[in-house]
């Protein structure tokens, strides 16, 4: 899969070792009511870097992404973007600053058409650019182009994931956050998603990927960050982490039975009607 980089229209210096700081998370704490999800997380993301965020369930990965994108306000700590403090900014402003999120479960807007989904993704762009960009991406993801005026709710899981990613790319973000992009996808489709991630990485985009399939995620990442019970327990270059079987054993292998960590979003967990396709 090669293409003329319609995914990002910004040039990055791609290097394996040195990155300029793009995003910095400083001692962030997040609580859901009485239950704390993040305990003083600090993380620096360099421009062009791809970080794999791995860890067992309830470790706080989604909470961390939500804090970065602004859906969660930390009770303590700061988030810096290109050197500027953005801790209090609402998500729509962060989008304008160049972040995008591919949310967990894709969260496709099922009543809108495929094209409209893309256009909403670029709602922060000026009107003229919006359509051009949508056309570009629909050319790149040809399945979306073919189904452009179909209701997005009718897409299959793999197509929906492509749409979710394309939608996030609409505003040409500097930083793309991906939350479980292969969740619920068949192995073939999951493999395609990873290929796409690799491609984005090659194109110089900065990525933070939360992924259950830790080994595969590490292959696609520059560095890795292992979370457990709301804390970063290990951090380092992806190859190093991948090579350390002990980490897999001790941090990922053991499911702590008695965690007092909230689920990423307690409300959504049970209270919500099934918005995602129940047929896949």
């Amino acid at each position, binding site marked *: 899969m090669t293409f003329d980089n319609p995914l990002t229209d910004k040039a990055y210096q791609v290097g394996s070792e040195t990155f300029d700081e793009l995003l910095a998370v400083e001692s962030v704490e997040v609580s859901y*009511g009485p*239950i704390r999800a993040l305990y003083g997380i600090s993380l620096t993301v360099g421009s062009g870097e791809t970080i794999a965020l*791995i*860890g*067992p*369930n*309830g470790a706080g990965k989604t909470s961390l992404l939500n804090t970065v994108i602004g859906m969660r306000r930390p009770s303590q700590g700061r988030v810096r973007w290109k050197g500027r403090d953005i801790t209090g900014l609402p998500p729509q402003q962060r989008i304008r600053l160049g972040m995008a999120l591919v949310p967990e*479960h894709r969260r496709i807007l099922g009543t809108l058409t495929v094209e409209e989904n893309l256009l909403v993704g670029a709602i922060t762009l000026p009107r003229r650019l919006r359509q051009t960009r949508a056309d570009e991406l629909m050319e790149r993801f040809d399945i979306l182009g073919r189904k452009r005026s179909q209701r997005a709710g*009718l897409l*299959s*899981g*793999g197509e929906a994931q492509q749409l979710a990613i394309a939608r996030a790319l609409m505003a040409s973000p500097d930083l793309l956050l991906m939350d*479980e992009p292969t*969740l*619920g*996808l*068949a*192995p*073939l*489709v*999951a*493999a395609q998603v990873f290929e796409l991630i690799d491609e984005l990485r090659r194109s110089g985009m900065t990525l933070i990927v939360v992924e*259950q*399939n*830790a080994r595969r995620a590490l292959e696609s990442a520059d560095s890795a960050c292992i979370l457990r019970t709301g804390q970063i327990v290990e951090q380092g270059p992806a190859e190093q982490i991948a090579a350390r079987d002990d980490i*897999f054993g001790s941090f*990922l*292998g*053991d*499911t702590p*039975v*008695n*965690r*007092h*960590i*909230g*689920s*990423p979003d*307690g*409300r959504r*967990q*049970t*209270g*919500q009607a*099934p918005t*995602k*396709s*129940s*047929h*896949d």
Partner: protein
Amino acid sequence: MKMASRSRKQKHRGRVARRGWISGGGPSRLAGVFLGTALLFGAVVLIGLGYTAGGGASRETLFTTLLINATVVVGMQVFIGNTGILSFGHVGFGAVAGYAFAILAVDVEWKRRLIGDAPFGASDVSIPAEAAIAAATGLTLVVAVIVGLGMVRSGAATGDIAATVITLAVLFAVYETAINWTDITGGNRGGISFRPGTAMPGRSHAYAGFGLALVIALLYRSSRSGRLARASREDDLAARSLGVNPARHQMLALLLSVGLVAVGACLRVWLSGTVSPERFFIDYTLLTLTMLVVGGRNSVTGAVAGTVIVTGLTEVTRLLSGPDFNPGPFDFVIRPGLTDICLGLAMLGFMILRPNGLLHDREITDLPGLRRLNRLQRAFAPVSPIPKTSTSFDVESAPIEDSPWPRPAPPADAGHLLEVAAVTVEFDGLVVLSQAHLSVAKGRICGLIGPNGAGKTTMLNVLTGIVSASSGHAVVCGRSINGMAIHRRARSGIARTFQNLRLFADLTVLENVEVVALAHGATPDSARRQAVEMIELNQLGDMASRRARHLDYGASKRLELARAAVSHPQFLLLDEPTSGFSEAESRLIVQQIRAIAARVGCGVVVIDHDLAFITAICDEVYCLDQGSVIAHGSVAEIRSNPEVRAAYTGE
């Protein structure tokens, strides 16, 4: 951190045990109801006596009004609190009762003046007030049955607008009837009244009504039906899929609730000696609903507390807008309409700031100070305390021999099979399943794999009755389940989990599991025992009294598994049990599912994309693509199947 969690653990364990009696059965439950009634009744009476001690006859009337309103509000709580369906119609039912009562109880001579041409010879009969209350309540219940059937037919569920619309229609239809059927109602701004001086004597009837309301509401709350209704309130579809028939419990809740409201309405009419359409319309609806939501609609104590608070509030506003109060420069606020504004603001404030009311679902018997009393009750409550949590999961040492569940049956004839044949499902012309088939024996674990959109979840939905197939049939243990309602399929031996968690969020972990056992006919004691055991098996023992909404993802998933398994189904259908799990967690869930299957002795159908997991757990695998079964066989067979590789695994 460790310390904190341990102490919390102990607290939780204590709490489960402490709450034992209220969710348990037998004499302890009755004792709880008795205690709750006594406490609430006593509290209200004390407040009332204190208030009336210093004042004239009008204070007495206010207190009587409070008792009557409390009867109505507690009545409404029975339905609204337990089913979660917002009803505007209860006041309408009250109107039916109020009119029926007045027509029956007003003395003949007086009545002839007002409604001399009444049909059914209604103007020629007069019965004692108490009998009239009973008769009016009976009549109202008949109306409620009809409305309830309609509501149930509409598939009422929490937050369901259809059910609320139907109740609103009741309110307006009754109001319009009261206005227009003048022969029997006396019409708008008219109505039927008692001969002066024959209104309610004393307060004993109001006491009786209030006491009755408390007993019935608390009884229902702790009853099987009440608990199942609350499970449906939390998640209707999950409850149905696990064998709860919400219709039945909603109906029972509605009837009890309307019965109490009817009694309250009769007393209300009797107290003031008159009934007219406006009395049971929007204003009274606002008043009673405000009372209910201020205190907390999910608890009886909340309903009573709300009544007391709102009555106090309206009395204060009445004083403020009356001639006895001269606020000097602030008398611009002393205006008609103050009461309505305060009620409206109270409702707004609570909906915005504390939508669950002051008490949420806490009852007075949950007060820490009452712990000792509760312990007393536990003395004659035969509920086994939660056994010690095993800190690590150990399949080998699991005491299978002691299990109350049947031993795994040998996989064999049709009596032990789940069979699906030639099932086709279409949505808007889109074929989702076409001539699909599946056959699983009890005791076997069968995987269902395939690319996204292949129809795997639809297969589960067809089996559980959530989706109806356009053709084909399904048989469980030799019994056809075609066309069966969702909850009946669950009772005939199918239990499932969901792709997206669907827990009963506001119930505790223990209750989540317990209600399912109850739905399957277990006695309260055995439901408790089974639930405790299932929770232990799924390593949730130390979280037993935590609300499900506060669990982390992994625990939530385990709870879903426990909840499905406690019904000891013939077949357990699991939709992506490892979704969102890491490899290690997936490995653990393999052991867990195996252990459960072994204990329950059921067959398992499991959908998953994690091939390692499927390989580890499945005895056989079906692979679906574009709605059809493209392969069936052992894991090895499937893995080597070229079609499967092309369509799915790509290996």
